[in-house]
Structures are given as structure tokens and as C-alpha cells.
């Protein structure tokens, strides 16, 4: 074993870029084979004519992309973005306090962290049906509100934008909480104590010490909520009564009932391109910011 260790270290020292390659190589290699290549196949599909019964036929056409740029689909895209943004904001408002509290809970840290993800080790469908049970007209919430006399008629909670947002926020909270926790957890109490000794009030302490430290986690959380939220569709179907379409539904339909694979593929790539552009812009801003600002 020591001999192997020597060998590896020797190799690492001889070629300085070997460190980068050994770290990045396996993961990136895996992704190139099992993600990039399939994706490029799909991209090829998006510029081929639609097969009569599904799939594609030989040929080249930009019809699928052209088809997308009409008001109805663009509206769906915009609405999806709006929903995803609102979901991200709410997740941030609720998730940050939780991450902060968990990071500061000393010996209960691990338990509280697990309690955040534990609900998600049950089936999504059963969870969602449980939410329906809570929110429907004859559901638990209405029953109790009626019993306690707060309302006289059942409230329409289910199949509203509210129920959809509640479901989305529910599903994405861990994606916000976990990254923020990860960057907050090292929160150096001595820094905070120093700030306190120097006379800073809690709000200032938070703004100038805690918040900047947690910023990487906040950004990561926002990206990990916003981006997948763009592709979500089941929640809006189950809790929104399938009365509206998100871009995720549209793509799903194209491969399923519409059997229009090129169009489904094209819609996906348009979405991906938009997100990729936004991420590149964000990364440029982040990298160009002076080091000390963080």
C-alpha cells in the first residue's frame, strides 16, 4: 500500500496539472459519456423531421424550433419562469432561517438536518395526495376551520395557484436549506463574538458577518431551486388541477401523447439555452467581483 501511495504522490508532483485531471477526469468523463452524448443525440433529434408514429425520420429541419416561437408557447415559458422565481423567493425566505437555526443547534445539528430530508424518503405521490387530503374542500384544514368557527363556508384552497406554490415550495425547501446550511455551518462564533464585543447590534452582526459568509450557499440554493423548478410539472398537475401548463408539461406531452419528439426536444433545448446563458452571466459577475467583497 505505501508503495502505491508513493507512486501516486510522485505522479502528482511530476505533472502539476495531474492534480486537476485526477480530480476532474473521472466525473467529467462519466458525464460526457452518460449525459453529454445522449443529450447531443437528442439535439440531433430536434432538427430532424417528426416520425409519423413518434420518433424521428431521416432529414434536417428547423421546423421544431420555429414552431416554438408563437405566443401560446412563449406565454407558457414566461409563466414557468415567474412561478419558478416566486418559488425560489419563498424557499429562500423560509429556508434561510431554518438553515441558520440548524447550523447553530450544536449537538442537535445532524438530527435536525435529517428531519429536513426525511419527509422526502416517502413517495412523492402519497405525500401529494396527503396534501390534497389537507387542502381539499372537505379536507382536514377546512374541517377544522369550520369546527372552530373561523369560517362558515369551506375555503377553496386546492386547485389554486396557492396550492401549487405550497406544493412546489414544499418539494424544493431541502434544496435551499441544505446548501445554505453547508456554507453557514462553519460560522465562526469567535467572529460573531468579536463583533458583539466591538459593539455591533444583532442586525449589523447578521448583515456584516453572517450574511456574507452564507452568500455562496444562498446562491447555490437559489440555483438549485430555480432551475429544477423550471422543469417541474407533476406538482402543478396534481395540486393545480392540471388546468395550466408549465414548460415541463409541454415537453412531457410531446414525448408522450403528442408523439412529437423533435418539438419536445427543441423546447427543452430552448429552455436549456436560456438557463445556460443566465448561469454564464452570473458566473462572469461572480468571478469579476473583487476578492475582498466576499
Amino acid at each position, binding site marked *: 500500500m505505501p508503495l502505491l501511495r508513493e507512486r501516486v504522490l510522485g505522479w502528482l508532483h511530476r505533472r502539476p496539472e495531474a492534480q486537476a485531471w485526477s*480530480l476532474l477526469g473521472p466525473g467529467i468523463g462519466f458525464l460526457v459519456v452518460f449525459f453529454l452524448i445522449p443529450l447531443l443525440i437528442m439535439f440531433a433529434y430536434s432538427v430532424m423531421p417528426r416520425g409519423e408514429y413518434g420518433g424521428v425520420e431521416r432529414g434536417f429541419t428547423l421546423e421544431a424550433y420555429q414552431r416554438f416561437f408563437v405566443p401560446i408557447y412563449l406565454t407558457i415559458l414566461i409563466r414557468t419562469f415567474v412561478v419558478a422565481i416566486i418559488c425560489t423567493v419563498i424557499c429562500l425566505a423560509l429556508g434561510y432561517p431554518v438553515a*441558520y437555526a440548524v447550523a447553530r443547534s450544536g449537538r442537535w445539528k445532524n438530527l435536525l438536518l435529517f428531519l429536513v430530508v426525511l419527509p422526502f424518503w416517502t413517495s412523492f405521490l402519497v405525500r401529494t395526495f396527503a396534501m390534497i387530503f389537507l387542502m381539499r374542500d372537505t379536507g382536514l384544514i377546512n374541517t377544522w376551520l369550520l369546527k372552530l368557527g373561523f369560517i362558515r363556508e369551506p375555503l377553496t384552497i386546492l386547485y389554486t395557484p396557492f396550492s401549487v406554490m405550497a406544493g412546489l415550495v414544499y418539494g424544493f425547501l431541502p434544496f435551499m436549506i441544505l446548501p445554505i446550511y453547508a456554507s453557514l455551518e462553519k460560522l465562526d462564533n469567535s467572529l460573531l463574538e468579536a463583533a458583539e464585543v466591538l459593539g455591533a447590534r444583532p442586525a449589523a452582526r447578521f448583515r456584516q458577518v453572517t450574511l456574507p459568509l452564507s452568500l455562496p450557499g444562498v446562491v447555490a440554493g437559489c440555483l438549485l431551486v430555480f432551475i429544477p423548478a423550471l422543469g417541474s410539472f407533476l406538482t402543478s398537475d396534481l395540486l393545480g388541477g392540471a388546468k395550466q401548463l408549465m414548460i415541463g408539461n409541454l415537453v412531457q406531452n410531446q414525448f408522450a401523447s403528442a408523439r412529437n419528439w423533435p418539438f419536445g426536444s427543441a423546447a427543452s433545448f430552448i429552455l436549456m439555452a436560456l438557463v445556460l446563458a443566465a448561469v454564464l452571466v452570473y458566473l462572469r459577475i461572480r468571478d469579476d467581483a473583487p476578492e475582498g467583497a466576499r
Partner: protein
Amino acid sequence: MRRGLPRWLVALVAAVYVFLHLPILVLVVFSFNASKFSVEWTGFSLEWYRRLLERDDILHGLRASLIVGVAATLISTLLGTFIALGLARHKFRGRRVLEALLYVPIVTPEIVTGISLLILYVLLGFPLGIATITIAHIAFCISFVVVVVLARIEGMDESLEEASLILGADEITTFWKVTVPQLWPGILSGALLAFTMSFDDFVITSFVAGPGSSTLPLVVYSMVRRNIEPSINAISTLILVMTTLLIYVADRFGRERAR
């Protein structure tokens, strides 16, 4: 050491936990419901727990889900952590583009990932099964791990590692004894996210699963057409109980060792 957290914060956090666990409570209660429709409480019954023993499909599904989940989590966490370190610690041409490209698996609609991987498997002649599912899960989990661990690294102090190297430790020792412990909350968070996504994945799995390798979500989603029998509630409850016990034991064990 600061004294406790402000009361409004504790109240808000408690409310969020209640919000997260209220549907779970409903789920658990209905596992003891006599009716096969989880609509109203009609009486107490252990029927669904008993039924679990007969439902091979559910038990096999759970087994497949666990195998895939654990394997995919371990591998994607490993690969993802390495990628994050590589990105954060080394400057090279195209680094920003690479980092941006890592977000693509997160935004790609699941059905696109699923079908495209299936096409690849067919072309390569891979037989569909547990392995193909695991590979698919790793593919979409890696990016999540990378993002979470990167966030952790960004706030980390490199001086500790520099000190370790100056003091004579080699790269491998430094990695295990200095880097990993510092990264640990990021690695753990990434792993938890990866397992959570893998365990409940449906769309991608439905396309890359082969005969005999249906995972638990595949069984459950298929039941929607008729009725999701409370046996699913029962197995979910059992999973929750088992996991909570496991965490408790692991936590205790960890604390014993720390002493």
C-alpha cells in the same frame, strides 16, 4: 458561546418543520386506516402492514430502490466532490464554461434525460437493469453535489491546507485529514440531496429500468390508475421509522467515538 436564538426565529423554524411533516403525519395515520381509499378515516386496521408481506412487487421495488440509491449516492458524491475541488482549486482554460455546463443536467427535463439515455443504452447494447438505472441516477445527481460542495468550498480557508503541506504532510494526507473534515457539511448535504432525488425518481427510471428491476416509485406511480393502496403508506411509514432509528443510532455512535 452565544445564548439561544431569538424566539421569533425558533417559532418560524418550528412552523416550517410542522409544514414539512404535516402531510407525513397524514400519510402515517392513513396507513392504519381500514378503508383502501385514503379519503376518510373508517376505522383502525393493520391490514395494510399484513398485506405488505404478500406484495412482492412493493418489496422488490424497495430493494431495487435501496440498491440504486446507495450506489448512486456514493458514486455521485465522490465524483461530484472531486469535480468541485478541481473547479475551485485550479484555474484553466474554459473553467467557467465547464462550470456552467454542469448546470445542464439540473435544467434538462427528466423525460429528455430518460429517453436519451435509453437510446444510448440501446445503441451500446447495454441490457436494461439495476446498473443502467444507477448510471442514470449518478448522471443527474453529480451536478447537485458539485453545486452544494462548491458553495462550501467558496467560504473555506485554504490556509489550513497550506499549513498542512508546509508542515510536511503530503497531498493525500492533507486531503483526508484537513480538506475532507472541512468540507464535510457540504459533502453530507450533497449526499443527502442525491439520495433523496434518487430514491423518489420516477420519470428517468421508468425509461432505463429493465424487466425485473422496477424501483419503488415505478410501482407506486403505476398504482395511480386504480388506487394507491395504503400498503404504500405502510411501507413509507416503516421506512421513516427505520431511517429515524438508524440516524439515532449513528448519531449516538458518532458521539461515543468522539469522546
